[in-house]
């Protein structure tokens, strides 16, 4: 009988662990050669995205559809971070042909 209780307890713990949300991760998007690299990022809600500007020019990241979020100008060598909450297309509002996507899985 005690061994059966342990089995239940063990199974319950496994189940609880399985239901736990994965710990938020940090993803880096490099801004290099006038491109967001990677241009499409697959991530989970709550993960953090860090944009690092490796170009010699300032860039910016702005949510495309409703401009719900926007970074200040990111200088050469600078970075900016955002906790991703939902799918978003974004672009650089200094160089509007530069585009990227955050895709929540």
């Amino acid at each position: 009988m005690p061994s059966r209780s342990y089995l239940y307890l063990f199974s319950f713990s496994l189940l609880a662990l399985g239901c736990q949300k994965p710990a938020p991760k940090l993803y880096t998007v490099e801004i290099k050669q006038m491109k967001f690299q990677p241009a499409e990022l697959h991530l989970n809600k709550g993960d953090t995205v860090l944009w690092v500007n490796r170009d010699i020019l300032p860039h910016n990241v702005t949510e495309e559809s409703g401009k719900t979020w926007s970074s200040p100008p990111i200088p050469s060598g600078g970075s900016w971070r955002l906790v991703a909450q939902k799918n978003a297309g974004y672009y650089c509002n200094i160089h509007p042909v530069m585009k990227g996507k955050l895709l929540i899985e």
Partner: protein
Amino acid sequence: MKKSKILTSFIAFAMVAASIPAIAQKLTDPEIASVAVVANQIDIDNAKIAKERSKDTEVLKFAQTMATDHKAVIDKATALVKKLGVTPKDNATSKKLMADAAATHKMLRTKTGHAFNKAYIDNEVSYHKAVIETVEKTLIPDAENKELKELLESALPIFKTHLEHAEMVQKKHMSKMMNEKKEKEEKEEKQEKKKDKY
């Protein structure tokens, strides 16, 4: 008559033939540095004229980006030539760029309103196409110094992005002009119909 035609043709041919070796000749690193600085400075000057003459938000924003970006490239080139101990040297290509730019600036200063915006953005499209070609086909292959070559290679995506941006503004401006023309025509048509009624 025939003689003078032959003479004119000969002079024209001689002029073209004389100009080709000067431009087609392999450029030295000091000459490449000069072309790079001049080409960037020309677009900063174009942007300055746009800021003086345009009221269009898109055009002004584009001009500001050109001024900031080309200044950043010049700063990088200046720092590199200083480090390498190279003095930029005028040459046929940089002189031609300057002469063409002087003519363009003169033309731009004669225009206002939509005509200016169109002339400015059309020139930005063709200018960036020409600069990309020069960097790809002449400056990068001719550059001897590794760091100078790398700088030119890193500037290329900037110029290509500028070209795409200029084409985007050109397209928007064109559709804006078409819409305004259509609205004007519709208004005139309505007024004509009103006149006919009375």
